[in-house]
């Protein structure tokens, strides 16, 4: 919990510093090109599942896409939606299965100064923040509980356990315009769960949109984007 707060404070400071950096830019004499408020929208599709299934097998999957609005080439409010899940069997034959839709909302700040040089004008180097949410169900099956003394044997199957999770993300990444209106690049995310499950209560091993359940996690997305 303390860690989560620390991250939130840290990222807020980061955002403030970015904003103030941008504010300073505004005081520069107006010999730069005028940038309108609205600069179109971009659709990013995450293609990292292709790499991830090659590397980690079929234990987990996650597909996602994002829609960003380009404001002043600096601010990019973003909505991300996805579908993710896991199907895992442990060494003790305990099964975990889930799938669900997740959503994230947030904003990116472009740190790349827009040059007059048109070739690189649309490339981005950004930092940002997200608030993620997932409401999903999961199954925990074939949990064997034995008691050697009382000679008891139980096989438990917990099905349709519902869970709601919220998390906070700090993101950074790049987008390069490879040909006209088509972008490629990666996004690194540091994810921090908000709230912790009490000891002993049912808890999902995997959270759609977040990943394996730990207090803090790092993930990478690789995106192909199209600017409309």
């Amino acid at each position, binding site marked *: 919990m303390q860690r989560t707060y620390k991250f939130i404070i840290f990222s807020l400071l980061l955002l403030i510093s970015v904003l103030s950096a941008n504010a300073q830019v505004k005081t520069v004499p107006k010999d730069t090109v005028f940038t309108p408020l609205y600069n179109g929208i971009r659709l990013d599709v995450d293609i990292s599942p292709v790499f991830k299934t090659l590397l980690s097998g079929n234990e987990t999957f996650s597909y996602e896409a994002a829609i960003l609005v380009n404001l002043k080439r600096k601010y990019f409010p973003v909505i991300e939606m996805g579908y993710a899940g896991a199907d895992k069997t442990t060494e*003790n034959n305990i099964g975990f299965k889930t799938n669900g839709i997740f959503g994230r909302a947030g904003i990116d700040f472009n740190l790349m100064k827009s040059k007059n040089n048109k070739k690189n004008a649309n490339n981005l180097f950004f930092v940002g923040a997200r608030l993620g949410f997932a409401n999903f169900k999961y199954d925990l099956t074939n949990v064997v509980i034995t008691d050697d003394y009382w*000679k008891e044997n139980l096989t438990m199957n917990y099905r349709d356990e519902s869970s709601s999770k919220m998390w906070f993300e700090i993101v950074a990444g790049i987008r390069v315009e490879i040909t006209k209106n088509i972008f490629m690049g990666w996004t690194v995310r540091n994810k921090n769960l908000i709230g912790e499950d009490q000891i002993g209560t049912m808890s999902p091993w995997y959270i759609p949109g977040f990943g394996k359940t730990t207090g803090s996690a790092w*993930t990478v997305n690789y995106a192909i984007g199209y600017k409309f």
Partner: protein
Amino acid sequence: MKLFKYIYLFVLLLLVACTQTENCTQEKNVLMQIGFYKKTMDSTTNIYTKSALTVDSIWVMGLGTDSLLYSKKTSIKSINVPLKKTIEQTDYIVRFNNTTDTISIFHTNNDRYYISLECGTVVAHSIDEIVSTGHFIDSVSIINRDINTTNAENIQIYHF
């Protein structure tokens, strides 16, 4: 060419993120801890004082089984015993030195006490009531109703 550098970096990060062990290393035993105490009355102030009691020899068996939990174990201040996981009453026959008592624990079972995916779940208990005979035992008090994987004293048995 810049692009390849980024792809390389990305793959490297992924590989780092993919190492985990899958063995259960957490505590899975759920035992009720019983501590032994004696009450002594100060003859001048008439106030009872509690102190830990070391039992010279103890013998414990669950009612309905034929195996012993403790077999004439000497010099003991507390015992740890398992409760039934499918039935909500557990009875023990306890022999303190040469005096025998029967203790009945009425409890509620929780078969959803989650440890981790590797370890699964265990059955935790909540003590509702304790009834015992009074040969060696003077009284029983519940200190901590919740019995789970944490090591804590749950009940105290008093002997005069």
